[in-house]
């Protein structure tokens, strides 16, 4: 590695996290020894079922729910699709209007857009410059045809934590169920579905050191929702398909570890986050912090550098052994920059120059020092190439 470093610096934990060894260890026997199909009736299958139900209990425990209200899915995207399309289908006679925000993950936004093509109406609430949704705006948007309010618990790009409890209360005052995409929030923010008034919650294991391809949807009892996957009678007849037992067991172990002592572990990560933010803003001119200064995920740094483009930043950082992410369009097929950054009011050219660094438990102060030592050089180099740089 450059600068004599022996290992790369991974700062893209909002994209995915490494699976913890303790999690892998619990998963492994489910592939080889306890491989039974939980739906079968012999002893081997019962073993698989017992481990799966233990995982369900752990997920329920982590969010203050009952085990029978946890339904395993293939991940956060399926959980979001199920919540939104399932509630829409079950309420077709009652109403046709959904309230969500303009900064949701594409799993929510594109599910809503698919419903719009079927004749549903969707309100995409704006956010302020910090990415916050105003509960009063939710109140204004709700009509007597509203069947669902869906607002994410924390944003994946800028890390802004939403006032979920206040928004849920507004929804309930109007008799409307509330869904939250908590994919980025689990393990980072304490979640209690009862205390926060959450009726539906999506989560995904690989965001908190669990395996990819496994997630869950929490469904509060009596919430009207259709089935999403038709087939066998798994998941009490509500989500067909042979359960991904190894993944589910991994999810259970990962969520147990992730939600134990959130505050204690956040303290260390917040210190690194704030040092990164301060260091970047102090040493690199024409730079701004995206997202909220306080209501922000412990591990999220998102900054916009004027006059430069994000993909170029990423490739130069990659060459220096640093893995990060950007809201620039140049990493995708479209030319549109991040919908989250533009919703926060960033001009397109600044949205293109954004860099997201998301920390994890394995990051060290040394990693922070290294990023702070090389990033100014990278930005300076690209600014020298840019015709937008003044002077």
């Amino acid at each position, binding site marked *: *590695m*450059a600068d004599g470093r022996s290992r790369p610096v991974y700062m893209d934990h909002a994209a995915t996290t490494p699976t913890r060894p303790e999690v892998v260890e619990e998963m492994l026997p489910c592939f080889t020894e306890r491989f039974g199909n939980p739906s079968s009736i012999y002893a081997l299958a019962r073993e698989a079922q017992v481990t799966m139900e233990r995982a369900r209990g752990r997920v329920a425990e982590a969010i203050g729910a009952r085990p029978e209200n946890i339904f395993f899915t293939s991940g956060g995207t399926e959980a979001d699709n199920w919540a939104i399309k399932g509630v829409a289908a079950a309420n077709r006679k009652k109403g046709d209007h959904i309230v969500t925000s303009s900064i949701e993950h594409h799993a929510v936004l594109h599910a809503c857009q698919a419903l719009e093509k079927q004749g549903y109406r969707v309100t995409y609430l704006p956010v302020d410059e910090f990415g916050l949704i105003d509960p009063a705006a939710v109140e204004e948007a709700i009509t007597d045809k509203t069947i669902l309010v869906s607002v994410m618990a924390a944003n994946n790009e800028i890390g802004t934590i939403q006032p979920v409890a206040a928004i849920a209360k507004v929804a309930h005052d109007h008799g409307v169920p509330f869904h939250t995409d908590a994919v980025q929030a689990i393990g980072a923010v304490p979640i209690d579905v009862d205390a926060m008034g959450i009726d539906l919650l999506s989560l995904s294991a690989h965001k908190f050191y669990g395996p990819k391809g496994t997630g869950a949807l929490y469904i509060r009892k009596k919430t009207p929702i259709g089935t999403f996957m038709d087939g066998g009678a798994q998941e009490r007849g509500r989500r067909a398909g042979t359960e991904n037992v190894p993944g589910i067991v991994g999810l259970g172990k990962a969520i147990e570890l992730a939600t134990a002592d959130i505050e204690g572990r956040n303290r260390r990560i917040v210190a690194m986050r704030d040092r990164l933010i301060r260091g970047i803003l102090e040493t690199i001119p024409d730079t701004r912090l995206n997202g909220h200064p306080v209501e922000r995920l412990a591990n999220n740094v998102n900054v916009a550098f004027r*006059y*430069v*483009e994000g*993909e*170029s930043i990423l*490739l*130069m950082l*990659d*060459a*220096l*052994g640093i893995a990060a992410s950007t809201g*620039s*369009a*140049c990493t*995708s*097929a479209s*030319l549109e*920059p991040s919908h989250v950054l533009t919703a926060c009011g960033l*001009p*397109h*050219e600044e949205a*293109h120059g954004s860099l997201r660094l998301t920390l994890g438990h394995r990051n060290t102060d040394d990693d922070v020092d290294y990023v702070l030592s090389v990033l100014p050089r990278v930005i300076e180099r690209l600014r*020298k*190439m*840019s*015709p*937008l740089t003044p002077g």
Partner: protein
Amino acid sequence: MTRVITMYSERVMDHFTNPRNMGEIPDADGIGEVGNPACGDIMRITLRIEENRIVDAKFKTFGCAAAIASSSMVTELIRGKTLEEAWGVTNKAVAEALEGLPPQKLHCSVLAEEGIHKAIEDYRSRHGAPKANGE
């Protein structure tokens, strides 16, 4: 710098990490600025032209690695060429010289061709020459 495995060819990464002809010619004879900050790409080409020949070409680019590499490559391709020859350097030629570009990045090579055309047009309009017949 460690070699990075990306969607780009080695040639693109080479021109991105070691761009040729980066900068701006003072009092250039022809200037071409193309692109749009909203789309994340702006290219500014400056030319020194003597006796109908491009004796120097420089670029400044705001954009992704493909945009920077395309700018670098196109300035290499047109240096020493007559204006007519330079006009004929296509986006395809730029992309081929870079050992290919990912499909979603081909517009970067188009931008490079446009930048050269605009700079030559600028030179011709300032020198009263007729507009190019090739376009």
